[in-house]
């Protein structure tokens, strides 16, 4: 009986809309696309975070970091800097901001 209860609980939890998990899945797809140098696809995935998952404070700075990185790779330094500026302005305490300042701004 206890087992059944636990299973039901698990089903309920897994069926619930877990926003953070969605955001992580989207980020994972973006990371994979960026890793394969499919930058347009990666930016399309990251756009989902910007459009729909912006309340996820963890997902947004990470997404912005990748956007900055992708634009750096595709030789669009102004756009890359825009994303880093956004990180510094709205997520100054995020580790992704520190990483962007260190890895991306330094290289620019």
């Amino acid at each position, binding site marked *: 009986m206890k087992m059944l209860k636990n299973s039901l609980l698990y089903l309920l939890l897994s069926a619930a809309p877990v926003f953070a998990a969605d955001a992580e899945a989207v980020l994972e797809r973006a990371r994979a696309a960026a890793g394969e140098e499919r930058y*347009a696809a990666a*930016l*399309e995935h*990251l*756009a*989902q975070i*910007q*459009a*729909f998952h*912006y*309340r996820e404070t963890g997902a947004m700075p990470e997404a912005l970091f990748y956007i900055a990185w992708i634009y750096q790779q595709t030789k669009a330094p102004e*756009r890359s800097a*825009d994303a880093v500026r*956004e990180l510094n*302005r*709205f997520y100054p305490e995020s580790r992704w901001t520190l990483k962007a300042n260190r890895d991306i701004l330094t290289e620019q």
Partner: protein
Amino acid sequence: MCTFSLQSLSRCAPVAVAVFIFLAAAASAQDQLAPPESMATSALLKTTRSLLESRQLADAIPYLQEVVGRYSSMDGDEAVQTRATTLHQLGLCLLETGDYEQAAARLGEFVETYPQHESAPLSRFLILEAYAWQDDPAQMTQYIERLDASGGLDALLSVFGREEADVYRHAVLSLVIAYARTADFENMQRFLPYCDADARSDTGLNLALIEGGDRALDDEEYLTALYLYRTVQKTGDLLAGYNRRIEELEAELAAPPPWVPQRERDAQQAEREAEQERLVRLKAEREEMAGSNYDIDLMLRMARCFEGLNRYWPACLLYRHIYTEFPESEPAEQCRYSAFQSLAVLGEPARAIEEGTTYRAMYPDGRFRDEVSLGLMHQHLALDEEEPAARLGRELLAQTPIHRYLDQVNYLMGYIRFQQQNYDDALDFFQTAAREWPNRLYAEESIYWAGMCNLFLSRFDEAVTVFKDYLDNPAWPEKNFAEDVTYRLGMARFGLGDFAASEQTFRDFLTRFPESGLVSEACSMIGDLRGAEGDLDTAIEFYARARKTAVTSEQEAYALFQAARVYELQNEWLEIISLMETYLAERGETGELAEASLWMARAWNARGEEQKALDICCETVLRYGGNPQLASVDLLLQQLIKESGVDRGGAEYAQKVLARLADDRSAACGSEGSRVLCLRLTALFAEISPDGDDAQALLDEPSLDGFTPLPLLVRAREALRQGRPDEVDPVYDRFMEQFAGIDSAAQMANLKIRALIDAGRFGAALSLARESFETYSGYPDAGRTQKLMADALRNLKEYDAAIELYNEFLTVREWRGELTPQVIYWIGVCRAKQDRITEAFAYFQRVYVLYELYPEWMAKAYAASIDCLEKLGRQDEIVKTWREMVANPAIAATPEGQQAQQQLDRLQKEAP
């Protein structure tokens, strides 16, 4: 009452929440008030108190000011307390009545003079609020920074941790609302965490966030706007807030009112009635919220922010989300259009076409019909889909009501026709666009292209007129095409034969546009013109200038080889050699290796130094032949093959080439690191040596690694020669993968088409031939492609279509040559297949009468004509034809000639 219609957002301005410590039982206001300065102090205090209690705040202000003034010079605790309280009240009244500047000043004076007063923390908030209402973020920020530096901010914020924090809840909400409304995101964020769930779902706050966002959007502060909109609670959150507040209020009203003294009963009753009214209002607001487009409006605003930030992917996703989730909503149509536009900007033409096409299907008379259809033409063109774009353009030209952007449709149709080299039609469209809409965006461009069409149609007179009129036209003081048009005017005058005017135009061009990318070309044109006049020294000077100012390798190479031609006229062979040596030394692998080497070889030959000439070419091949990327080495090899004569190994020059390179070839083929050079030399040997083993060696190579254009062509030709057409496929694929852009790609395509025909895949052959003909239309091998296209049609038994193409072939002077008798022969075959025997016979006869240089095709034509004569019953002429065949030794040696001889022998034996 605040409305949720964001389109008509009214200012639901929250007013500062004043906590009137004097407020007690209501008192009636006095109708006639004496001037404050004339009153005794006790009367002044009583009047002031009465005005505050009756909330006549504006009237109370001068009395409060008088109290503050009188008590400023008094000592004693009671006097200090009265002055402090009055000063605070004065600040509150000023805030309530909207005099924010004075309110900030008075409250500032209060907290500075009485920092320990119990109302000081609240007053600090209210100062910020006063600044906020003044729309003065700089002062707000300064004040906060001042507080921060003095440690006052922590003290201010610490009140939220205390139990009496309730007192400040409304104050902080007001402050946050004020910051939000003025789009001061950073300061809003500082205080937002102190708003509880109820405050976060406060209608006033959320509408203020939207108002602030709109304000930032208007100021093109897209990022600030975006983050303000993102802070807005969505419908679900707001409804939860409403439900919570409604439940609490209902519970409060359902409970019996607490006991209060008799004198306060009326006030209590009034308060309960006000609460009841509030409940009704909250429920109405909840209903309105539930039925509104609030979330859609919010998403639309965010999408506009993304567009402003040039982030079209999130904008596109939001638009798609709206029309997918709310297909019946009013903005759904606009969102489909906006998604189409976003995809177009993102450079996703295929997806944009899908989006735009769906829009047109869903909203045939939609608001954005013309924008979408015009955009679709652009997107098709972005995909090089000229025909679909043209089809759509034709539809739009015939559309009723008339297309809003008909000028642009005409312009695009002109562009398409120009791309298709249909300059007559293109000219019509450009002229229409310029004539009918002279003030529209594309008028200037249309005139320029109309001139270009005339130029391409060799209507130089008209081109000169169009270009000159454009340059003299005052309609465009800042002419976008002045530079290009001046250059083209020089070209048109050149075409017209007005060389003096042409040269003067190019010289004017050099003066007016010294920084232009066309300077080199103008110099070369002047060089050409001077050269034609025999002024060779000046020509050489201009070619040198053209090389110096060249911005592309093509411009440099043109001037270089033109200079070589002038030196050739002057017999200045050493100048040519020096010029090319310098060029090759400077450009190396990036230069025109083949042509420069050939010029040097020609110069050495002219000086009687044949071995040096051969050495130059061979050294270039050996030096650069190991680099598979340098297709110009293959070009040079092809030139060596051409000069070695067509009869394999027969030419003396071929023998010299073989002798010169034999050792180098052995060395390259014996070394693992020289595969590319080995393959190239093997291909060269295969083409000029009598030994067929070299071609076989290339065909036997198990891997195509290191194969460059020439070895690939030789391998494909050998495969075809041996009847192994399937082996051409990988060779073709490899060629097109790496060398699709070079001249011999057309040859490779023709070999593949031939292979498809030989394999009986006529449909595929036709398709590839059509594609190839379009791609390589200007190449010398295009004639062969045209013939192969006709061959494919003939094999598909589409004789009329085949004949049409064969006839088109015959009209092009440049294609005349070895293929001409073949084409005429095949027309005859087509007519014979159609049982039009007399016509067929005439074609065969034409071949053997006119093309004696091609005995193979003469023999075939003779044989085919004999078939015709049989069908026509003209037996006597058959014998005559056999005799004619055997009388020509070249024909007699062919299989058809031998068969003719056998027939004659048979007749002789049968003769009595």
